[in-house]
């Protein structure tokens, strides 16, 4: 279970009942509700990331907790996604106020990693190599070819690649972005581990 602290110090624990109520409000089918929950959470994380949050995932969870609490308290919410956007905005304003109050903003935001940049880059490239190795061969080739070339040459690589695959350039873009997202997540996970090997 997730436990979060409201910014004003009121502690509230997300109960199983509240979580179930939140899922039920998203869809009557629990599997589909779970998918929608993940999607909503992803949108919340990006909402806070694009707003400049230092810890967007925490704020996304805080938002979902508040929404779940509302639903558990019996409030009828017709459009959970729209309601979430309003709550998210409120959470963000509170975060900004908290930043102002504590003056903690930039230490966290601007602080570079303590690791040597060269080492970090090397570790990342190693992780990327390993993650590329985990991809199916055609996916690996597609993503590398997609990002190859400079400016116009890159554009033509992409057109040619799309032609060879028999798809539109935009369909190729979507496909590559999915592969790229998987790669990025894989690299992130590997860098979190003590060793990337």
């Amino acid at each position: 279970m997730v436990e979060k602290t409201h910014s004003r110090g009121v502690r509230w624990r997300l109960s199983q009942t509240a979580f179930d109520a939140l899922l039920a409000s998203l869809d009557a089918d629990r599997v589909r509700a779970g998918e929608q929950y993940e999607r909503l959470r992803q949108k919340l994380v990006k909402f806070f990331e694009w707003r400049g949050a230092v810890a967007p995932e925490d704020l996304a969870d805080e938002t979902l907790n508040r929404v779940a609490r509302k639903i558990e308290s019996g409030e009828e919410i017709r459009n959970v996604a729209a309601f979430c956007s309003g709550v998210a905005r409120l959470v963000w304003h509170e975060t900004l106020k908290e930043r102002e109050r504590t003056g903690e903003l930039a230490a966290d935001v601007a602080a570079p990693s303590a690791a040597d940049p060269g080492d970090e880059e090397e570790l990342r490239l190693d992780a990327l190599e390993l993650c590329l190795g985990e991809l199916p061969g055609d996916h690996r080739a597609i993503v590398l070819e997609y990002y190859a070339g400079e400016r116009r040459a890159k554009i033509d690589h992409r057109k040619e690649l799309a032609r060879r695959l028999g798809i539109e350039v935009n369909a190729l873009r979507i496909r590559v972005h999915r592969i790229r997202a998987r790669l990025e997540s894989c690299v992130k996970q590997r860098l979190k581990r003590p060793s990337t090997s």
Partner: protein
Amino acid sequence: VPYLRTNDEAMQFLLGKLTEEERCALEDRLFADDDLFDRVVMAEADLVDAYARGELSSEDRECLEAGLLATPAGRERLAFARALDARARRARVEPRPEQTPAWGGLGAWLFARRGWVAGAAAATLAVAAASAWYFSRPGEVAPESTEIVAEDRSPAPEAVPSEPPPLVPTPPPSNDVETPTRPPSRSPSRARVAAFQFAPQTVRTIEELRVIRVPSDADTVRLVLGLEEPERSRYSAVLKTAAGEPVLRRDSLPVRGDGPRRRVVLDLPVDRLPPEEYVVALTEPDDESHVVADYIFRVERQ
């Protein structure tokens, strides 16, 4: 993605250029619309990639640094983009140096394409339309030209020419250099339009690079852009330098003519076209990433 649509709403949002009200409205739509959300996520990746490759304008770079890249997640995303770029560069096959043309970035790009387009080059040359240029005369204002000038919101030339000549499928001159077919004969007070016709280019070779020579006293360059089978009645046009720097964009340009004469006419103020290599992309009206045709040329001044 042929070009980054840095002037569209999603990009403006990601670059932090929207007002708070506009931003909130878009955020609400992002929660309601999965497709829009996915498009913005992809646009974000494109933007960070472009930053990593040094392809953004200085203004957009600064916006990104102050916004998305100022957070730990943004820095992480940039580091990944750089790593992926480095890895993709390593995988790329470089052209042999002794065959690399000596005249700049566009040449290198054309060279890189030459291998796979070699077979198509002759055919393309055969269908390349001849270009022409002519001067305007007061009183010969054509409705289509007036409309285009109005869309640009730039000062209109004193006059623009009447209907441009039809696209004639005759071979271009040596090295495809466009030169005046007749000497200028105008009074100094008259505005002048230098017009050049382009066939749609689906493949390109070095030999196909169009060189247009703009008379020193021309006010406007008119590009008559031939289209093979336009699916829409209007398109947007994006003009960039070959280095990718945006020059201008015009929306809602109507398709003129029919059959082999279908074309879009683009009037450009001469002062926006210093001697350089350019690319004009005709795109879907609401989707700049969907390029229906592009036209490459180098501007020279007479």
